[in-house]
Structure formats: structure tokens, C-alpha cells
């Protein structure tokens, strides 16, 4: 499974509890309120544990986390 699918599955199942089954990689996570502060923090922890990627604190910014697509692009750039 690629990063995008892993992240989408995690957000849909664990963070949204199945509330938005049709969430796509391009959906805005922050402006729309899909994820809140705790959700972002959980996502950072998940990326660390599951994808074994440590996101530097200065990169936990809106621009990198506003959608799954943006996040995957950022994580691919890190690698």
C-alpha cells in the first residue's frame, strides 16, 4: 500500500471514525475542519510510527498538512 492510501485509511478509520468514507487525497483537512488540533498531532505521531518518518517540528505547518496529497508530496520530498 502506498503512503497516500495508508494515510487516507488512517484518517478515515482512526481519526474520523468512518464519518467520511469518501475522503479523497485532495480534500482540505484543515479549512474544512476535518481534522482538529489533536487530529494533526495524532497524524504526526502516526507518520512517525507507521511510516517511520520523523517530521521535523518546523515542517508541521499548514502548507504541508492541509491535504493528504500535500502531505504525501512533502513526505516524498523528505525521503
Amino acid at each position, binding site marked *: 500500500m502506498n503512503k497516500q492510501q495508508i494515510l487516507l485509511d488512517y484518517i478515515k478509520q482512526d481519526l474520523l471514525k468512518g464519518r467520511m468514507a469518501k475522503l479523497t487525497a485532495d480534500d482540505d483537512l484543515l479549512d474544512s475542519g476535518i481534522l482538529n488540533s489533536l487530529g494533526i498531532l495524532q497524524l504526526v505521531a502516526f507518520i512517525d510510527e507507521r511510516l517511520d518518518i520523523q517530521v521535523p517540528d518546523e515542517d508541521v505547518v*499548514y502548507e504541508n498538512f492541509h491535504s493528504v496529497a500535500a502531505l504525501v508530496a512533502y513526505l516524498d520530498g523528505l525521503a
Partner: protein
Amino acid sequence: MIKRLLALNGVSALCVVLFHSEGWGMVAMLAWADRYGAVPADQIGTFTYYVFRAIEQLIVFCIPAFLFVSGFFIAFVTGRAHKTVSWRIVGIRIRDLIIPYTIWTLVYWTLFFLEARFMDGRTFTPGEYVHMFLTGGTDPAYYYVPMLIQFLLLSPLLVYWAKVSPVSLIVVTGILQLLVQLQYYPSILGLDIPFTNFIPKWLFMTRILWFPLGIVVGFHVKPMQVWLASHKRTFLITALILYPLAIIEWELIQSFSGQIGLQHQETFLDTFFTLAVIFAFLGYYQTKLPYAHTLDDLGSKSFGIYLIHTLAMTYTARLIAVWLPGFLAYQLLFFLVMFVVGLGVPLLLMALVNRSPVRPFYKYIFG
């Protein structure tokens, strides 16, 4: 450092439950002493009393920590490009707080209604219900929600200020924080001075420093990370020194005032202790925390724990007071029961909903 914020929320959630468990322990020790034939004044100065005081002092950072994390997130969602946070995001954040707050407030009101109907409980006028909702008066812990909502409504101003002049924002809110605490001193010392102790607990002024501090740190993550890490030992030592001093301060205040079992108010020392604790906790971000995963998990559930724990504790305490009053004499055991109930009931409810057909509504019930 950012990953530490979830654990900070988790530690704060645990501490809130500890605090209210200790509060019930104090109720058993003092207000309910007659139920098992004890004298309140005799309980002051006992080992149990000082255990409770130690807990009461230790957890004083938890609400400021919640506000700090919320402020940090507002900075995060503002991003680098915008001058301030949008009203859309503010509205969404308020919505996410108000829905679960309203649900649990209605649960309380239903219980009030049932008590009034069947057990000679107090009745409330519509105006009193409105007042309770707006000020968090339904439950002693619920003041936090209106307070946070006020900060969110102020956040466009605070974020703009934090971007333009972060130092002045912190200096001004820091001074205001100390001034607010100054006006509490006359009443807690038992002095009758007009125009003091008039700021209600639910008003944002009572905790004015912490949310803006979170915003400023959120906009300066890298330099703050370096600064906090380089001074972490200082913050830890400061916290360890201020902790006993703050306990002694409160005992002196209580002794001077002549009041037994004075309800704790935050003092100057508490503000500096809280700063030291939060900064030390973040400064040691590279040190692995014990039970880190559990703390993160509790952090993700902190709002739900916050909304439900006092409800569970209140009715458990009242049941024990009526059916098993002799148990109140064992306040440390009573405290443990309150803690288990206060933490266990919310977590159990969350687990049940998570496994049920109403799982998609989890966010609306528990935040």
C-alpha cells in the same frame, strides 16, 4: 517537540481527573466529615490532607496547558501566508467544542430535572439554564469551554498581534495574568476590600496568558525548540523549587485567612510554576516518556474525558455519601475510587461508542 503536545494534553487530562478526585477527597474530609462523625478542623494537617494538597499543587498547570495547546493549533492552521486566522476556522473550531459541550450539558440538565421531579432536587428557571450554558455553570469544570470559546473569538486579533509583535503580546498578557491573580489575594486572605475577586472563573481574563503563549510558540517552533531544549534543566529545577514553595504559600494564606479548606485559587507562584512545567515538559522532548503511547491516546481523548469525568464522579460520590458514608472516612481510598471512576467511565463510554453503529458520531459526542 510538537509530538510532545499530544502527551502534554494526555498528562493534563490525567491531572484534571486527579484534581477533581482530590477535590472529592477534600469534600469527604471536610464538608462531609459529619457523615462519619469526624470534625473538619481535626483533618487539617493530617497526612491525607497533605497528600491532597500536594496533588492540588502539582496539577495546577493542566488547564493552562490545554489552552496553550489550543493556541498552538490556531497558529498552525493560520499558516505562514495569512495575516491572521480566518473566521471560518474559528467557527469550525467553536462548532466542534459546542456540540459535545451541549450534549453533555443536556445530560446534566436531564439529571437535574429527574432529581427535581423525584428527589426534591433544585429546580432552575429558564434564565438560570441560559446562564449555566453560557458560563459553564452546569458543572464546576465546564467553565473551560466558554473560556476557550472566548479565546477562539479573540484569536483573529491575537494571531495578528502575535505575528506583528509577539514579545509585546506575551508581555501584556503576562502582566494582565498577574494583575488578575493580584485581585484574588484580598479575598483569599480574608480581607474585605472592594473591587477585588470580581472576575468570574469563566472569563478569559482569568487565564489570559496561556492561549496567546501557545500562539506565539506555534509561530516560532524552531527557535523555541532550541531555546526550550537549551534551558530545560533550568525549567525543571525551577518547577521543583516552586512546587513546595507554592504549597507553603497556600498554607500560609489559609492560616492567615483563618478559613478551613479554602478553595484553591491560582497565585503568582502558580503562574511561574505552570510556565516552568510546560517549558520543561516541552524542553525535554527528546527524552522518551514512560507510557508515551498511553499518554498520547489520553491526549487524543482529552476533551471527552474532560466533559464526562466530573459527571461520573459527582453521582458516584453522592451515592457513596448516601449508601456508604463510613467509606468517606478513608479519604485516600475514596480518592482512588473517584479517580478510577473519573477516568474509567469516559474511556469506557468512548470505547463502547467506537465499537457501535454510532461510531461516525463519535466526534460530536466526545469532541
